[in-house]
């Protein structure tokens, strides 16, 4: 059967259904801006406007400077961009199976396709916003504010690690949200807590209280966001330990997420 036996792994099922995932991602993107005047330009415009607001606020309203190396608006933007990717994916993952209930209940359709579509369509948006950050960094470099981070060539590897981590989380959230509706509300709060418990709007070095610092270092999201920002903005080559730590976290997320998903897979269609 095309939909795959329930025993088959999530990854192999996704590979088999890659055509469907691609088409559904395209559908998502098409539907998203349908009827809007600017269409895909919004994907560029949204982050651009956000960056403009940060620049104005944190340059002239509250002149903030958290590192000596880069202007704060760029620092903030380089943290918010990947965070927006994760939180967007997880919030959508919590409702994606419910939204596609008719397909799951009435058509033979492998459920793992939908969290995957969520992840990839957010990834596309992320990739569309990324050039804004890179151009902003280049402009700042041109003005002598920063050195252009050539480590950015490592970004594909970082994104791969992110994809693994986010994918695992999305699978877990999607499957659990079907059975435990409370998860959706819980998730909002968890994301809020993690937003501040992860060095997104501040660098880790800024924290003076040792206990707090150790706590934030232990946060599994910390190595991921640091890896991303080191490579894309700060131009630091992450240490092997940093790579290993981030990749380890991602692998655990993925294994845990796909395990939870395959445990609950059979029950999704009848519960959703």
């Amino acid at each position: 059967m095309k939909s795959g036996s329930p025993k088959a792994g999530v990854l192999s099922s996704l590979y088999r259904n890659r055509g469907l995932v691609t088409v559904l991602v395209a559908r998502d993107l098409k539907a998203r801006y349908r009827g809007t005047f600017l269409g895909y330009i919004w994907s560029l415009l949204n982050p651009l406007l956000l960056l403009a607001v940060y620049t104005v606020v944190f340059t002239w309203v509250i002149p903030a400077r958290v590192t000596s190396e880069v202007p704060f608006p760029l620092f903030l933007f380089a943290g918010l961009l990947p965070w927006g990717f994760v939180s967007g994916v997880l919030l959508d993952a919590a409702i994606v199976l419910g939204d596609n209930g008719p397909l799951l209940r009435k058509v033979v359709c492998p459920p793992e396709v939908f969290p995957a579509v969520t992840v990839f369509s957010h990834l596309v948006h992320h990739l569309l916003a990324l050039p804004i950050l890179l151009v902003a960094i280049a402009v700042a470099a041109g003005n002598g504010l920063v050195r252009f981070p050539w480590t950015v060539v490592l970004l594909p590897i970082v994104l791969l690690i992110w994809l693994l981590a986010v994918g695992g989380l999305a699978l877990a959230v999607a499957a659990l949200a079907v059975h435990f509706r409370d998860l959706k509300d819980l998730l909002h709060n968890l994301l809020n807590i993690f937003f501040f418990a992860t060095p997104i709007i501040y660098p880790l070095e800024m924290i003076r209280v040792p206990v707090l610092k150790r706590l934030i270092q232990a946060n599994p999201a910390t190595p991921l966001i640091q890896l991303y920002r080191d490579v894309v903005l700060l131009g630091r080559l992450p240490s092997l330990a940093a790579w290993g730590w981030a990749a380890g976290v991602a692998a655990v997320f993925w294994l845990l997420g796909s395990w939870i998903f395959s445990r609950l897979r059979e029950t999704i269609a009848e519960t959703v």
Partner: protein
Amino acid sequence: MSAPAVRLAGVSKRYPPLTRRGKLHSLKGALLHGDLWRVNEEHNGFLALSDVDLEIAPGETFAVIGPNGSGKSTLLKLVAGILQPTSGSVEVEGRVTALIELGAGFHPEISGRDNAIVNGMMLGLSRSEVMDRLDEIVEFSGIGPFIDQPVKTYSSGMYVRLGFAVAVTVEPNVLVVDEILAVGDEAFAHKCLDRIAKLQRRGTAILLVSHDLGLVEQLAQRALYLKGGAPVLTGPAGAAVARYRSDVASDEAGSESAAGSSRRWGNGAVTLDQVDLVDGGGRPIRLLMSGEAAGIRAAYTVRMPQDDFVFGIAIHREDGSYVFGTNTDLDGWKPERLAGRGQITLEFPRLELGPGRYLVDVAVHAKGGLAYDYACEIASFTVTAPVGWPGCYAPRHGWNPRGPAMTPPSE
């Protein structure tokens, strides 16, 4: 018969309880023991389907009938692979397409064309396969230029037509249909039936759920009658429909419901004692020459005198396909009184059947369907013919060559 397209063995389906407590309990189980949800499945919940055995051959059309909530849709979803059985096994050969809700999952904001592509891929085609069939889909759906409009602008009929068009173009090995032929206008309904007939000829096994019992008798060779999740009868579609009608009638009348095996049931008010094929002289026979006079004679005993009764007789082939059926009501006989013992004969001046073996169902029931005695395959007979004509109808005939030079048969 070749390997079955669909095979269900001892299939049961139990739904978990959806109460708040059940949820919390399972959440606790999930977090503490890691046994995610499966904990209370074994002894709680709602048994939607119990112990169903079923085989459907390629090219066969099989119907599932029964009252609402009897587990018909659950059965379809198990075959479609949407649900997994709690126990037992479901085996399906080849590609399954489920027509459970047409156009399910169409995205309102994107065009009919894009939706057709997504839907087709969801039903198991590759992108290029869908593209190849797209013209056919558009043509069949009759949507015309609207195919490039977002489907939110479609009428419900257009929606359903597009859904059906995609589903049948997939050319499945097994087609699962849930009560959808009632949709669309008259013309489209005919188109659907044509297409289903085409799939039948191609060897697609069709599993059909419908409350339209006339349609079931027309389309299906065999049927399963489900009641409260349990199979009551699996047999020729006509017999299953009759059993279902009888049960409905007895429920409505509040009378003793028909009981008995899958081959024979009734409330016992009248019993059919003996059914024979008789020749023109009234002597019982087993073998008959095609075109000879014959009759089917049923002897009965009445335990509770009736003034509402119909005798019916049906002849079918061994594969369940009907050859002929009639009853006293159809032929205009008004019942007056049925008591004591007696017999009734359906006479054919010339029984022009093709050579082969035939089975006879005989029933006596109330006009509303309540069965007094319904006996499936209570008698059988064999028809012989001088020539092995194929088919079941062998009328008198002759050739009249005007042009070809031919020698007539010697005789």
